[in-house]
């Protein structure tokens, strides 16, 4: 841990092979993120974690730390750009926080608060995305999907089931499940699957859990998302 780079004026130590976001997390510094999860191979798609490295924009979840890098993250410009990305995610889907069971535990909502998003700004797309309530224990509400692919990665890499996948292209990209019927009930998903635990928003929900924790006492009601920096998993191999 002898080598360091500079993040917003602060010296950040890093281990060989660590990405910028991993090193920052280890040092307790929050960089906004949605598709990044310390236990999975970085995806680099939401672009929320974009920082400027030596003046150039790059996703900090995929960029390897190197000695002497000058990294900007918590700047007005970058946070304004991130705010725009969050607004894009809000208008692309159908996000009605007041009626969402994930409210208060939702990373999209918490990140919007963190970045000071006051309105969705853009015109809503209002996509037509039917919910899948077929499974006795789980509800899939695709309206809230932000295409982070965490469930896809978790199901493929941890559960070894490939229950979830991305389909379609461009603005028509969407989440599908691995069943000829297209219904979650006809997959081999299980409640204890990792894929069921990782959704950062309110797509994959356990049934009959609604409002067990009252609004106001949920994860991000107490402490904003920047206070929940997850420690990185031990680096066993180069990612």
């Amino acid at each position, binding site marked *: 841990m002898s080598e360091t780079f500079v993040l917003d004026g602060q010296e950040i130590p890093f281990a060989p092979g660590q990405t910028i976001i991993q090193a920052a997390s280890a040092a307790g510094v929050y960089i906004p993120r949605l598709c990044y999860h310390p236990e999975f191979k*970085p995806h*680099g*798609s*939401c*672009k*929320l974690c*974009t920082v400027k490295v030596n003046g150039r*924009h790059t*996703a900090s979840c*995929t960029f390897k730390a190197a000695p002497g890098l000058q990294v900007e993250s918590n700047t007005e410009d970058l946070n304004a*750009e991130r705010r*725009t*990305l969050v607004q*894009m*995610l809000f*208008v*692309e889907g159908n996000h009605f926080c007041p009626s969402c069971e994930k409210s208060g535990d939702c990373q999209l909502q918490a990140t919007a608060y963190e970045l000071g998003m006051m309105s969705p700004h*853009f*015109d809503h*797309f209002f996509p037509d995305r039917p919910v899948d309530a077929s499974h006795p224990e789980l509800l899939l509400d695709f309206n809230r999907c*932000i*295409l982070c692919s965490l469930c896809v990665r978790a199901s493929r890499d941890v559960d070894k089931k*490939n*229950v*979830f*996948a*991305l*389909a*379609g*292209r*461009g*603005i*028509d*990209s969407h989440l*599908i*499940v*691995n*069943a*000829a019927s297209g219904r979650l009930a006809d997959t081999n998903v299980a409640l204890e699957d990792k894929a069921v635990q990782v959704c950062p928003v309110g797509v994959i929900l356990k049934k009959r859990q609604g409002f067990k924790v009252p609004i106001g006492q949920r994860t991000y009601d107490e402490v904003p998302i920047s206070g929940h920096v997850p420690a990185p998993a031990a680096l066993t191999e180069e990612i």
Partner: protein
Amino acid sequence: MVNSGGLQSILRKYEGNPHNLLQILREVQEEEGWISPDRVAALETALAVPRSKIIGAASFYAFLHLQPVGRYRILFSDNITDRMLGNQALMEQLCQLLWVEPGKVSEDGLVSITTTSCTGMCDQGPALLVNGRAITRVDEARIVEIAELVRNQAPLSEWPEEYFRVEDNIRRRDILLDSHFEPGSSLRALHARVETEGMQASNTRSWREGLPRGLVGPATMLDEIKRANLRGRGGAGFTTGLKWEACRNAPLAEGQDRIVVCNADEGEPGTFKDRVLLTSYADMVFEGMTLAAYAVGARRGFLYLRGEYRYLLEHLEGVLARRRRDNLLGHSIIGIPGADFDIKIHVGFGAYVCGEESALIESLEGKRGTPRNRPPFPVTHGYLDQPTIVNNVETFAAAALIALNGGEWYKNIGTAQSAGSKILSVSGDCERPGIYEFPFGVRVVEVLEACGARNTQAVQVSGPSGFTIAAHEFERRICFEDIPTAGAFMVFDQTRDMFEVARNFVHFFAHESCGFCTPCRVGTSLLKNLMDKLHNGHGSPYDFEEIEKLNHILQAMSHCGLGHSACNPVLDTIGKFRPAYDARMAHQDFTPAFDLDRALSQARQMTRRDDEQAHFAAEHGAAQ
């Protein structure tokens, strides 16, 4: 219908290898018209690939169909050059004749009609694809005939040959197109040069010592390419010698090979030079690939052929078969021990983003064409994580020319930083659209004179992702120092509305965004909506600010070049053709894009009403 025996033979042909999933799906679809749930289920078992992956991959590509699309699937090329030639009216005509709505399958399952991105026939448009086959020079008379053929359910083999005639239209030849290339001549010239000139050292010793075979020859080929100062013809202009050398130097893990890929996914609207090279100069392209393989030490090669050029597949397979017979492919090529190389053709399925090299490699591996996170780069971790070079069709043809005539000769043609010649695909408002080869450094005005363009307002160089060049810039030069290009050269005369040009390009990017990253997936659609808002007469200065904001986000945050360049045509045309936008500024204050009257259009369609009472008399003249 493919019986299960048919499916078995397709699976055998592709060795039951899941990495060939997309080619297997293509062949199934070519026999059955679409990919049915039964076939997906059969492949799930046969390839041991989860269904979600098969659906995920297939649904990414515009030309793979998981739902029936009609026995005749008609796609009108919708590049701006097709629009200028009247494709929209022709499509409407065909829809009316066949009683079908655009984008929908007719109720009897006979036909579906919609648009597709540029099919690379801009010099002989308007063009369309019927069941994947290109029809050129469509006009009203031909539409009437096509409607008749479809109605009578005539098999494509009985349609007039003339429909499917694709011309080369080569209007100006230079070093490459005038080379009268003899198959094998570059390989033999290189072989001879090795004996006469011996080792020309320009590389480090380390990798040369590590060469497994053919010590001198590969080094000589690499030296010639470097001496020629050849740069990639796909547009970015990366130094070919450096790319090849990096691949050559990349360490190989156990069981790995090096891979040569020819990028013939010529998707940039307005570009069609690769089609002509593959039609009439295929030997030169394949020989360039073989030389590249020899230089980097590769044994396997792929030609990634865009789906729109599927009609070239049998021709190209024929050239490959002949080259195998002539010992220009296969084992010990032209008798050089250890010079083993062969090429497979992978047909694409309508996805522009696969022109990006890492997305192309994903697609080759049978997956969704999403650009990878880089580094690592393909030269070290490409196809199935093996060291891979991806070069443009024209780059390989130029490499063959360099092996034939030497790098020294080549580098003296063109400009200081842009050696050699460039093949331009000229279309739009000019008398002689077609293929023009010029030495690098040619001025825009020279090309305009050569193609017989008059009263030219603007030229779009290098396609929608390139540059809009206005009249005061026509003295500028086509070369990496000034205006770099992948080859497109679309001409617009004074009668054209440059706003509509930009709007067409923005629609293209929104259609072709892969959807992987947030800024491009959502941003290109937002941009499209803004341009449509201006088109619909609701524009205000506020919308300019929004366009600029989106441009910044796309450039700064996007994952790949598609997003980075999606705003280029808008910014260029705003900067250079502002009056075309000002004409649409109906309002000085913000006006919402939402239009109550337009929102009721669906209700009007359902009730089959279009009378005055069915419209809101909108204040801003929205009623049509």
